[in-house]
């Protein structure tokens, strides 16, 4: 094999490797089947506080149980279908708004089967709840089904050592692009609770 042939072979090898890596990367990014919801957006603390029936800080004691729930309440509809949800059990640690008490245990539903058919925003922000975490939650209450967060992007914010953390840029609390500033006073749970309480009376 001549030097020229070796060079051509090397170049072809590099191009082939690049294409293979690109294909692998694209396959990794292939979307899963998803629900794409258009949810209410809350521009400020007052509007999200008004929208929530219940605002709590809770501990996730059980997480990621997938169930098909009948949430279709359309009257006179014969072909109602159940919807997959990911359920979590929450022990209430602090009540900011609503008719709950410390120590109560409630169930939260998050749209989609987190493994196979997730809701798009929850999938992108890794927003399905994990066991043994603490969360600030803005929830809507239903007579015949578990609580729902007011929306996936803004309704649940993780609390770590008294500081709020969110992966979503629309979150009103705890989102920071600057990791160094992640532990800031204005991201503390206590400051957030004070700002929410201004609108609960």
């Amino acid at each position, binding site marked *: 094999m001549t030097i020229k042939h070796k060079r051509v072979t090397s170049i072809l090898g590099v191009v082939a490797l690049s294409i293979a890596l690109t294909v692998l990367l694209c396959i990794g990014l292939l979307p899963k089947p998803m629900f794409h919801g258009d949810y209410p957006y809350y*521009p400020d603390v007052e509007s999200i506080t008004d929208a929530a029936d219940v605002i709590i800080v809770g501990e996730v004691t059980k997480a990621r149980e997938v169930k098909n729930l009948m949430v279709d309440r359309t009257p006179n509809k014969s072909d109602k279908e159940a919807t997959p949800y990911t359920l979590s059990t929450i022990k209430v640690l602090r009540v900011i708004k609503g008719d709950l008490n410390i120590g109560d245990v409630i169930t939260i539903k998050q749209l989609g089967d987190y493994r196979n058919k997730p809701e798009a925003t929850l999938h992108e922000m890794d927003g399905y709840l994990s066991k043994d975490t603490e969360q600030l939650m803005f929830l809507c209450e239903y007579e015949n089904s578990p609580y729902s967060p007011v929306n996936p992007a803004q309704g649940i914010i993780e609390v770590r050592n008294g500081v709020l953390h969110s992966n979503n840029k629309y979150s009103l609390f705890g989102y920071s692009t600057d990791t160094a500033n992640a532990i800031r006073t204005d991201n503390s749970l206590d400051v957030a609770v004070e700002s929410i309480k201004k609108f609960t009376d």
Partner: protein
Amino acid sequence: MKRKLSKIIVPMLLSLLITSMLTTVAFAAQYIYYGGGLLNPAVEVENRLSYGIFHDCVDEWNSTDTPVDITQVPGSGHSYIISGQWDDTWYGMYTPQSRQYVFWGRAGKFKIELNRSTLVSESDTFRSSVLVHELGHAFCLDDNPSSGNSSIMNYDRNRNYLTWPTSDDIAGVNDAYAD
């Protein structure tokens, strides 16, 4: 030894460089591609809405300079748009059906649901914004393009005003259906 190492490392670094260039080009667009949109933008749709917004919303898409062609059909078994009452907080929901490769890929048809429980006190303009947004998913647009441009796909759009696909949305659809 050094030569042997450089023969391995240099091509690997070159490969990574070319790969990153290729993926940057693929994802640099302002609109965001959604892979669960329709395989064919000419689609037959059943109107099962209890709101009278279907035709205006379909016109908003059909009048764009894109391959989108929505035709209303009677019967069942097609894509459909329906309103109902669900115990959840969403206004609208897009679900791809009959996907190209069973679990992923473009959709053969879709279901769009509008939630009367959350839309009950909203105007038809607001509801139209939701439906035109959901139809955007059917034509391969994802939520929240990072451009900062006005887009029907943004969560924080003014739903009492924006009821049409913007230039950024139209560019995204044309890109998704380019030959």
